[in-house]
């Protein structure tokens, strides 16, 4: 029953030209992670080979994503449609600089977590499926970044969500189940709202392809339904990104799973929400963004202040980090609220930076716990004497998250503030700077308490208290813990010293988002 009984010419709806091999880089990350996940499920009993399957797969994904980013930067936006069906019939995978950059960053962060987990995830938890879940999570995340179809985006959201549920309850402790209930219910409600918005959008324009939607909404004469949809999308993605006032699930759950799991969650999951906001607000509904700009700005500032003030008020280091995640989300949303090229470029830069820094910070917490045996700011202390290298890494990471130079966070915030001032939204710039000040105080306190003072609370200066039971010596820390920390710190440092390349990529990404001609052209125009 092959194509022999052709009564109409269907080649008009199909890709007929040869597709360059490089375009396969678009689907390669998804295919590789899916295959790697399947293989590691088959070999789930062999817990010694598990990490290596995952590391090999992620290494291939990193290589493919580097190739993809290079491809996108040299040839412009790249599109591949599934099954040769031309858009809007086939599901399109479309990579612009934003998606390709975030996919690459996400795979690097996942690699660091995979290496770090070799020593910190117990044998039985590996058998329970840590590595398969990790690979499927990466599959969902890169799929979200690279897809060009809004319903497909929903499907990738669910892929990453179900793997994150599995990882959240790894260990089966009371506190994890408590955290998982809140995390799971609120995230599912958010994706269901996203689905509802997508259904309504389909009813409005009759298409699901993002490029097609962008073109059709521009030609739409009545803006009322579109503004309602933009608001619904904003609520759904703000919930996923943990923006104020729908952020409370994040500090309630991020300190409960294993710390490597929290690292990958903090690095990737909220950023997927921000990515979706960037995509929908700027590419699909720029008119809706203009209308919502003030609201997004207020939400962004409230989120930043909640995050930084919340971080100041914590005793538990893990919860402190959770609030730092929220503060970062606020900064990225500020970029969306301002919406000009500089600010959006800053938001993209910040997303990239945030993936690296939040992963690194949670890994640092795990490292600090191993060194000191406690998460409490009151009991921790004396780490500088025991590990000067660790203290140096900690200082760099904590200054970077506060946005101080010369690290990557500085340039992101610089772009955001410059963009806000350029657009005449001084109050957004003020919010970014004030929240940066609070964050600096919070992380400064953390570093002084954990690393600089001699021991736990009330230790007199110049005296080193005895280490707490359960802590270990710096020489006992294995390479699999040092390596990811050092690599992430080095990346953050190098991007901070040499930001020009990164800035040109993010600027390119912002241009593609704000002026969708190239994006639409890639999907519909030059059928590659």
């Amino acid at each position, binding site marked *: 029953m092959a194509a022999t009984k052709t009564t109409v010419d269907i080649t008009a709806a199909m890709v007929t030209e040869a597709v360059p091999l490089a375009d396969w880089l678009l689907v390669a990350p998804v295919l590789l992670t899916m295959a790697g996940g399947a293989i590691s499920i*088959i070999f789930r009993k062999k817990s010694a080979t598990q990490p290596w399957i995952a590391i090999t797969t992620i290494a291939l994904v990193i290589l493919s994503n580097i190739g993809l980013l290079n491809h996108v930067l040299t040839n412009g936006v790249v599109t591949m449609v599934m099954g*040769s069906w031309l858009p809007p019939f086939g599901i399109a995978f479309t990579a612009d600089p934003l998606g390709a950059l975030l996919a690459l960053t996400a795979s690097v962060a996942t690699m660091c977590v995979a290496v770090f987990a070799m020593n910190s995830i117990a044998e039985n938890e590996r058998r329970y499926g840590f590595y398969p879940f990790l690979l499927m999570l990466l599959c969902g995340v890169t799929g979200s970044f690279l897809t060009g179809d809004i319903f497909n985006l929903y499907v990738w959201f669910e892929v990453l969500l179900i793997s994150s549920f599995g990882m959240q309850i790894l260990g089966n402790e009371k506190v994890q189940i408590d955290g998982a209930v809140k995390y799971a219910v609120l995230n599912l409600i958010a994706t269901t709202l996203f689905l509802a918005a997508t259904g309504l959008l389909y009813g409005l324009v009759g298409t699901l392809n993002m490029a097609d939607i962008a073109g059709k909404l521009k030609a739409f004469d009545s803006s009322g339904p579109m503004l309602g949809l933009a608001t619904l999308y904003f609520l759904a993605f703000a919930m996923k990104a943990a923006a104020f006032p729908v952020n409370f699930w994040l500090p309630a759950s991020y300190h409960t799973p294993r710390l490597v799991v929290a690292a990958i969650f903090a690095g990737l999951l909220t950023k997927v929400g921000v990515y979706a906001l960037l995509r929908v607000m700027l590419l699909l509904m720029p008119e809706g963004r203009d209308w919502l700009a003030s609201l997004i700005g207020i939400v962004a500032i409230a989120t930043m202040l909640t995050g930084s003030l919340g971080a100041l008020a914590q005793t538990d280091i893990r919860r402190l980090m959770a609030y730092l995640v929220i503060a970062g989300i606020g900064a990225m949303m500020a970029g969306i609220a301002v919406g000009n090229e500089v600010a959006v470029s800053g938001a993209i830069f910040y997303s990239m930076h945030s993936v690296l820094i939040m992963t690194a910070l949670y890994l640092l917490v795990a490292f600090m716990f191993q060194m000191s045996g406690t998460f409490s700011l009151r009991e921790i202390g004396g780490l500088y004497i025991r590990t000067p290298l660790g203290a140096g890494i900690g200082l760099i990471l904590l200054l970077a998250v506060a946005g101080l130079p010369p690290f990557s966070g500085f340039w992101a915030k610089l772009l955001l503030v410059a963009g806000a001032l350029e657009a005449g939204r001084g109050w957004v710039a003020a919010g970014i700077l004030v929240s940066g000040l609070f964050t600096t105080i919070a992380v400064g306190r953390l570093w002084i308490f954990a690393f600089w003072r001699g021991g736990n609370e009330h230790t007199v200066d110049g005296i080193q208290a005895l280490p707490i039971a359960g802590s270990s010596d710096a020489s006992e820390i294995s390479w699999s813990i040092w390596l990811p920390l050092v690599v992430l710190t080095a990346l953050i440092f190098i991007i901070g010293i040499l930001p020009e390349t990164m800035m040109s990529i993010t600027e390119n990404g912002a241009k593609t988002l704000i002026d969708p001609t190239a994006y639409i052209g890639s999907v519909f125009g030059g059928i590659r």
Partner: protein
Amino acid sequence: MNTLIFRTVAPYLSALMMLFSVFVLLRGHNEPGGGFIGGLIAVSAFAIYGIACGVSAVRRAMKFHPMSIAASGLLLAVVSVLPSLFFSQPAMTSQWLALPFLGTVIDLSTPLFFDIGVYLVVVGAISSIALSLEERAD
């Protein structure tokens, strides 16, 4: 539930349902059916067999662990995406191969293998949930 009649009928019934599930799977390309619904029918067969004869009997009958079945299905689905790579076509473009066999022609295609992959994923994933729930009920 666990009556003599049920225990006697269950093996035949589940064998018949397995056969039907494969039928539904194979006719799926051009007519209603396909991997997902076929997989669900196969899982129902396992569930019936499990209710009648116990979970351990089902696990023995399945030979492989459900998760391995699901994973191999996923792998098969991924592999079925690849052939169009060699013809310079976009991913998932269907490739057909007409195979003469005993006087008739069998149309083999990549969508068929993708569908078989879906079937295995559904069989593996849902039956592992069903079996663990049945185990808890015991």
